[in-house]
C-alpha cells in the first residue's frame, strides 16, 4: 500500500501500473501539480472580488452586489462573462506585442509566487532552498509588467502611472526585503517550509512584531492598494497604467490586483503567523491548509477595511514616508535583531530546532520582544518630536534659532 505523500507523487505509480511510460507519467503528474497550484488562485480570485466588494459596500453604508446568486456571490462570474464578450481594443500607436504581453506577465508574476507557498506539511509546489528570495524576485517582475503596460499604451496618463510604479514599487521593495531578513535569521533558512517549521512553538509575529508591522505596510505598498494606490489614482491619472486596456486584458489586470493583495497577505501568514501550523496539522495536512486560509483571512479583512476607509496619500508623502521612516526603522530593526539573536544563541537560551513546546521558546521570545519594545519606543519618540517640530513650524511658534544667536552675540558685544 503506497502511503500518500501527495497527490502528484501518488499518481505516478498508478499511471505506470496502467501502462503509461514512466517518464510520461512523471511529466503528467508534474503538469497536474502545476495546474492545480496555479488554478487555485485563479478560482479563488472570483470569491475574493466578491468579498472585497461586499466589505467596501458595508463600510460605505451600501449593500453591495446582491442580485446574482445567493448574496450576490455569482456577481463576478457574470462580470467575467461580460469582460470576455466585450470588444478587445488595441489603441492606435500602441506597441502591439508589449501591450498584449503586459497583462499576462502581470498575472504570471503573482501566480508564480504560489509555487513556494506551503499549504500543509506535505503540500507545497516546490520547497526551494531560496524560497523567500524566489518570491521577492518573482514579484519584482510585476513592476516590469506595469511599466510595459504604461509605456506601450501610448497614453500620457498610462505613462505617468508607470513612472509612479518605478518610484513606488522599487522603494517599497527595500523595507520589504530588509524585514524579511528577520524571519530568515530566526529560522536559519530561506525555505518557506523551514520558516513555518521554525514557528511551531512561537509565531514570529510575537518574536518580531516590528518586522511584522513593517512587512504589512510594505506589502500594502507593494500591492499598490489604498492608501498607496497611486499607480492608478483615479482622481489624478484617470486610471493609471491600465487606462487603455479593455475587455479581458483589463480583467486580467483587475484580477491580478486582487490576487496580489491576497497573495501578499498569504505570505504574511506564512512568514509571521505560523503558516499551516496549528493543533493537529501534522497529522491531518488538510487542517493545515484550513489554518493557513483562516490566518490569511484574519489579516486580509483589515487590509480591505483599510482600503475602504483611508484616503490616498500624495506621491511625495508616500515616497518620503518610505525612505525617511520605513527604511531607517527596518535597517535598525535588522541590526538589533541580528545582535539579539546572536546573544540568545551564545547565551544558550535559544530553543532547539523543531521544539514544539511553548515554554522552551519563552526566554528567547522575551529577549527579542524587549528589543522590539526598545526599538519601538525609540522610533515613537523620534517621530513624536519630529511631528511636534513640524506642527510648531507650521504655526510659526518656534523661535528662529538664528535670531536667538544674533541676539546673544549683540549682548556679548
Amino acid at each position, binding site marked *: 500500500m503506497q502511503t500518500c505523500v501527495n497527490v502528484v507523487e501518488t499518481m505516478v505509480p498508478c499511471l505506470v501500473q496502467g501502462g503509461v511510460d514512466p517518464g510520461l507519467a512523471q511529466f503528467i503528474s508534474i503538469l497536474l501539480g502545476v495546474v492545480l497550484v496555479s488554478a487555485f488562485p485563479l478560482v479563488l480570485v472570483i470569491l475574493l472580488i466578491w468579498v472585497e466588494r461586499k466589505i467596501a459596500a458595508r463600510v460605505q453604508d451600501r449593500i453591495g452586489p446582491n442580485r446574482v446568486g445567493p448574496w450576490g456571490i455569482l456577481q463576478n462570474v457574470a462580470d467575467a462573462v461580460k469582460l470576455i464578450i466585450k470588444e478587445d481594443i488595441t489603441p492606435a500607436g500602441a506597441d502591439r506585442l*508589449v501591450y498584449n504581453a503586459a497583462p499576462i506577465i502581470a498575472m504570471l508574476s503573482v501566480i508564480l509566487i504560489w509555487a513556494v507557498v506551503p499549504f500543509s506539511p506535505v503540500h507545497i509546489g516546490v520547497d526551494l*532552498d531560496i524560497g523567500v528570495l*524566489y518570491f521577492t524576485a518573482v514579484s519584482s517582475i510585476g513592476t516590469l509588467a506595469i511599466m510595459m503596460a504604461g509605456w506601450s499604451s501610448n497614453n500620457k496618463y498610462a505613462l505617468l502611472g508607470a*513612472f509612479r510604479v518605478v518610484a513606488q514599487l522599487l522603494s517599497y521593495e527595500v523595507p520589504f526585503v530588509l524585514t524579511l531578513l528577520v524571519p530568515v535569521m530566526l529560522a536559519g533558512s530561506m525555505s518557506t517550509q523551514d520558516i513555518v517549521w521554525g514557528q511551531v512553538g512561537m509565531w514570529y509575529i510575537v518574536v518580531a512584531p516590528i518586522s511584522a508591522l513593517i512587512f504589512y505596510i510594505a506589502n500594502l505598498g507593494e500591492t499598490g492598494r489604498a492608501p498607496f494606490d497611486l499607480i492608478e489614482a483615479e482622481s489624478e491619472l484617470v486610471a493609471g497604467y491600465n487606462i487603455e486596456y479593455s475587455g479581458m486584458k483589463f480583467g486580467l489586470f483587475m484580477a491580478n490586483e486582487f490576487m496580489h493583495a491576497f497573495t501578499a497577505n498569504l505570505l504574511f501568514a506564512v512568514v509571521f503567523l505560523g503558516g499551516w501550523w496549528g493543533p493537529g496539522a501534522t497529522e491531518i495536512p488538510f487542517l493545515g491548509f484550513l489554518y493557513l486560509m483562516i490566518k490569511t483571512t484574519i489579516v486580509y479583512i483589515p487590509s480591505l477595511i483599510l482600503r475602504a476607509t483611508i484616503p490616498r496619500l500624495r506621491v511625495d508623502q508616500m515616497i518620503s514616508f518610505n525612505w525617511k521612516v520605513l527604511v531607517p526603522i527596518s535597517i535598525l530593526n535588522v541590526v538589533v535583531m541580528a545582535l539579539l539573536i546572536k546573544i540568545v544563541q551564545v547565551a544558550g537560551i535559544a530553543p532547539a530546532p523543531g521544539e514544539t513546546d511553548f515554554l522552551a521558546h519563552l526566554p528567547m521570545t522575551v529577549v527579542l520582544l524587549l528589543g522590539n519594545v526598545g526599538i519601538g519606543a525609540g522610533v515613537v519618540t523620534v517621530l513624536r518630536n519630529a511631528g511636534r517640530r513640524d506642527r510648531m513650524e507650521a504655526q510659526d511658534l518656534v523661535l528662529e534659532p538664528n535670531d536667538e544667536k544674533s541676539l546673544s552675540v549683540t549682548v556679548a558685544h
Partner: protein
Amino acid sequence: MLELNAQSIAFFIFSVLVLGGAIGVVTSRNLIHGALYLIVSLFGGAGFFVLLSAPFLAAVQVLVYIGAIAILIIFAVMLTRSMTQLRELVNAQWWLSAIVGIALFVLLAVAVILPVWGVDGTNPNQPVSDDIATIQDLGVALVDGNQYVLPFEVASLLLTAAMIGAIFIARDTSVDMDD
C-alpha cells in the same frame, strides 16, 4: 553525442533566449524594445544558472538585473527621450565593429572547441562530481574570515560609494535642494 533529455532541451531554449535577446539589444532601433530584449536575455541567463544548480544566483539575477537594473535602464531611456532619437542606429565604423565581434567569436569558439574535438580532444567536459556546494556554503564563504569577507565588505563599500556618486551626479542642480 548528446542525448535529448529535459535538461538539454531546456539548455537550447535558454540559449535561444540569451542569444536572441542579445541580438535584439544591439539591433533594435527603439531602445525600450532593446531594454525588453535585454530582460529576455538576462532571463535566459537566469535559466542557465538554474541548470547549473546555482538557484541563488538565478534568483539574484532576476531580482537585481531584471527587477532593478533593467527597470532603471527603461527609466533612463524615458528620461533622456532616447526613444525619439531614432535617426541612425549605428555609427560609421559599425562594419569594423562587426568584424571585430565575429573575429573574437571565432577565436573564442576555436579555443573552446579545440580541447574537446582537437588532436588531444579527450576532455569529456562533464562535471567532476555531482556533490555540489549548497547555498549555506556560499553564505559561509562570503563572511568567512579565511575566504571572502574582505571582498564582501569592499563590495558593499563600492555599492555605497556608487550610490552616493550616482545621486550626486544625477542631481538637478538648478533646483534648490534645501527643502
